[in-house]
């Protein structure tokens, strides 16, 4: 004969490749048909997975907007530099120019003692007290506007440099809140990352469990396939495609949910923006992230199906 020495079934390589591709196509279509055959269960899996994936996207959206607001508001925050009282007008102007020439400074405005007094006078309850003063006790103040978009340490360094100037009495650093916000946002980044990882694992488990149930319900068929000579890869193929479909659809769902949240946020942010001279805009999720989500989810689905099917087929073999 013989079975081993005369492999009559050995196909030529080109045939093999085209039929291999054909089986991939068949597996993809067949797994999709099976998903559609029990819509409720499939939708449930996709919904759970989609929600799990939408959560980190929503956090990402929130974080992006808080960051953007922080930056927008930060631009309003000038550093107030109070000079020594003995400074004359020309010295002050010279200093203002020096500071203004720094690469990390956008603009310097000089506030004269008279201007300071006028401002105080406008504040209720001060006018009477000021009238009692014989001479203006207020110093010159430089209002230093850092370049927009500087990070907290750079602004910190600027503040330090200003404080070290000889003619400076005091620096009022309004940047500490920004530092705190930056720190908070840094934590937020980590939280989003951790959340994304956790929920990705959750999505993996959801797909894995769905595929596990699927395989268990078709153990009879799998047994037959193995008996007529199917390899593990052949048997597994439709389940891997099922995982890919679950992932892809849930990723699309997650992206749509994120877009819906973005849309819902845009109203309140627009209102907020008016309060800040239109400086705020909703910062949406970047397009690449929205497109990458279904792809990443499909990979997750494949991975979940792959892990579970390998484990379950080892039991069946």
């Amino acid at each position, binding site marked *: *004969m*013989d*079975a*081993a020495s005369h492999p009559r*079934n050995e196909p030529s390589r080109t045939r093999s490749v085209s*039929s291999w591709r054909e089986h991939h196509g068949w597996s993809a279509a067949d797994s999709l048909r099976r998903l559609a055959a029990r819509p409720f269960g499939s939708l449930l899996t996709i919904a759970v997975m989609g929600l799990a994936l939408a959560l980190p996207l929503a956090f990402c959206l929130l974080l992006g907007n808080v960051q953007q607001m922080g930056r927008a508001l930060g631009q309003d925050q000038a550093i107030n530099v109070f000079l020594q009282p003995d400074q004359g007008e020309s010295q002050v102007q010279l200093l203002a120019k020096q500071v203004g020439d720094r690469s990390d400074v956008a603009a310097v405005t000089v506030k004269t003692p008279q201007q300071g007094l006028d401002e105080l006078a406008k504040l209720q309850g001060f006018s009477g007290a000021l009238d009692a003063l014989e001479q203006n006790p207020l110093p010159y103040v430089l209002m230093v506007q850092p370049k927009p978009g500087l990070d907290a340490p750079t602004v910190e360094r600027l503040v330090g440099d200003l404080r070290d100037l000889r003619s400076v009495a005091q620096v009022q650093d309004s940047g500490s809140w920004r530092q705190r916000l930056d720190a908070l946002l840094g934590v937020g980044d980590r939280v989003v990352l951790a959340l994304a990882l956790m929920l990705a694992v959750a999505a993996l488990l959801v797909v894995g469990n769905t595929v596990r149930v699927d395989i268990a319900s078709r153990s009879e068929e799998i*047994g037959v396939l*193995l008996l*007529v*000579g199917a390899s593990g890869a052949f048997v597994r193929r439709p389940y891997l495609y099922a995982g890919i479909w679950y992932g892809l659809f849930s990723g699309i769902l997650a992206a749509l949910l994120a877009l819906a949240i973005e849309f819902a946020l845009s109203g309140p942010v627009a209102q907020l923006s008016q309060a800040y001279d239109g400086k705020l805009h909703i910062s949406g999720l970047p397009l690449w992230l929205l497109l990458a989500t279904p792809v990443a989810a499909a990979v997750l689905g494949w991975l979940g199906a792959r892990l579970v099917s390998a484990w379950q087929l080892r039991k069946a073999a």
Partner: protein
Amino acid sequence: MIQFDQVSKHYAGGHEALSQLSFTVPTGEMAFVTGHSGAGKSTLLKLLGVIERPSHGTISVGGQNLAKVRGRGIPKLRQRIGMVFQNHRLLMDRTVFANVELPLTIAGIARQERGRRVRAALEKVGLLSYERQLPATLSTGEQQRVGIARAIVGRPSLLIADEPTGNLDPQLALEIMGLFAEFQQVGTTVLIASHDLPLIKRMRKRVVVLDHGRLVADLAAEEVL
């Protein structure tokens, strides 16, 4: 050629299903394995398909030691063995055509060639006109014939069948056995497990008799009365 050399099989917790079994089936021969229920017939066939492994001894098929067949070698081996089961084991949600096509798809045969071979196999078992139907719409005998078509479509050099006529009336059973005899005539080695002694006698082929896992008789075709 099938060769069993001092083969024993203990199932976990069970007694010895096969005990120091030695026999040879030359290429192109048709043989029956018989014995009462529990004699070890199914176990013997499962060892050939590497569905079970022997506890002791050596089995070789076509000169290949089955102990050395592992991992990816197992599906490759099964592609070269046609297996027929008592309860046909067809996929009930696929057409007759798709069921018979399965081994060819698995072997990576191109679509056109598959169609040709599936029709040839269905024609051989007399079911060509049923190709688009689901197995459930067929009678038990027809389902069994679909199972046989699936077993032979890959042109295996070894055909094994476990009680292939167990559910059939005597006339149908004889027809099925006739089919197997035809495959033998074109050079296929055929090994059939059956406890249907009257049927076996009518076939006039070699008979290996098992009792409690031991070989108790090995009758050549001409010795069968």
